[in-house]
């Protein structure tokens, strides 16, 4: 049986590879007369009048991946959190779980240099993240959080609703096994993240993130992470399958 299992991936792999499109024109999107995507065209809307946030997006730069608090003068740390943050910074961020192929978690998934795909489904919004093959289900069917988070997780539990032109996502029930950025801002399982997705025009979107974790910070703080649309391409598979990095270093 083991031998059969071992050989299966050999047959599956070529199929997976051919199912990916690096460069393929996206249909039904506004283009200028020379065929270029009109990234400053108006924000598209769904039949119910809300902005349509579906599409392939990626962060404009890695500023907030490095440091989620990069735009702030000071971070309202609780003393223990500041001590841990300084330790992580002092070690150059070498113990970031992401470097061991573990999921980035919420909110870090908004800051990555790889695309994510937002899909608007009945009763939920699904986001597929290229990096490390992650996904989120953001329920929009009116449910509240479960009474108890039986199994705190990397991506947490997410519910979403529209407030004007903002798609507002609240996430709780995360585990404590990821860092919120490469610099190592800590959090606890009490973390509640609010993400306000606002598509400002056809090619641009802002994700306004609020960190509310009274066990680690004395008051909420956050960042606005700018994203741009990636037309004419698709997600590529990104399984973090063979981390050679550690074995190359002494």
């Amino acid at each position, binding site marked *: 049986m083991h031998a059969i299992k071992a050989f299966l991936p050999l047959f599956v792999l070529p199929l997976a590879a051919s199912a990916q499109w690096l460069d393929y024109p996206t249909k039904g999107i506004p283009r200028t007369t020379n065929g270029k995507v009109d990234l400053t065209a108006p924000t598209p809307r769904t039949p119910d009048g809300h902005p349509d946030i579906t599409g392939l997006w990626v962060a404009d730069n*890695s500023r907030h991946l490095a440091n989620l608090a990069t735009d702030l003068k000071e971070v309202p740390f609780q003393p223990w959190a500041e001590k841990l943050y300084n330790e992580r910074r002092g070690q150059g961020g070498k113990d*970031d779980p992401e470097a061991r192929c573990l999921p980035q978690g919420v909110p870090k998934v908004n800051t990555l240099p790889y695309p994510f795909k937002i899909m608007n489904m009945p009763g939920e919004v699904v986001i597929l993240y290229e990096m490390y093959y992650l996904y989120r289900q953001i329920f929009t069917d009116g449910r509240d959080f479960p009474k108890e988070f039986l199994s705190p997780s990397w991506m947490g539990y997410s519910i979403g609703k529209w407030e004007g032109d903002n798609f507002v996502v609240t996430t709780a029930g995360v585990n404590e096994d990821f860092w919120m950025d490469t610099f190592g801002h800590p959090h606890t399982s009490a973390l509640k993240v609010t993400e306000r997705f606002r598509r400002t025009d056809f090619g641009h979107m802002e994700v306004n993130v609020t960190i509310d974790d009274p066990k680690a910070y004395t008051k909420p703080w956050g960042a606005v992470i700018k994203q741009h649309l*990636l037309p004419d*391409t698709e997600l590529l598979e990104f399984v973090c*399958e063979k981390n050679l990095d550690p074995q190359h270093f002494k």
Partner: protein
Amino acid sequence: MRSIGAIILVLSLGSIPVLAHHSFAAEYDSKKPVELKGALISLEWVNPHAWIHIEVKDETGKAAKWDCELGSPNLLLRNGWRKDSIKPGDVIIINGSAAKDGSNIANARTVKFADGTRVFNAGSSGDPGAPGAPTQ
């Protein structure tokens, strides 16, 4: 022909920011730039980082193996690389930053052929702490 395809891809998909996975600062020293010229031993097309292994000869002709970290395969694909863009035996020149621990390891920023004709943006050197990357 491959080089033309690569250039077009770089131009049309150049809006993706350079990769950042793990902390550059933890492993590499931006103040230790290196230029390595040698024959390719192998290209490991794996996540989260591809690696180039090359044989570099010093002035006396003594050969040493160097391991150079690149971006992920997806980043390389979007920047115009293909798995066969460089082949074992090709002489290449790598510019990047050396490892902090003094071993024969570098983070590649650019990779070009010995005749200088093709230059790719290679690396994971956009990681926090790398030259030009955010520090605050």
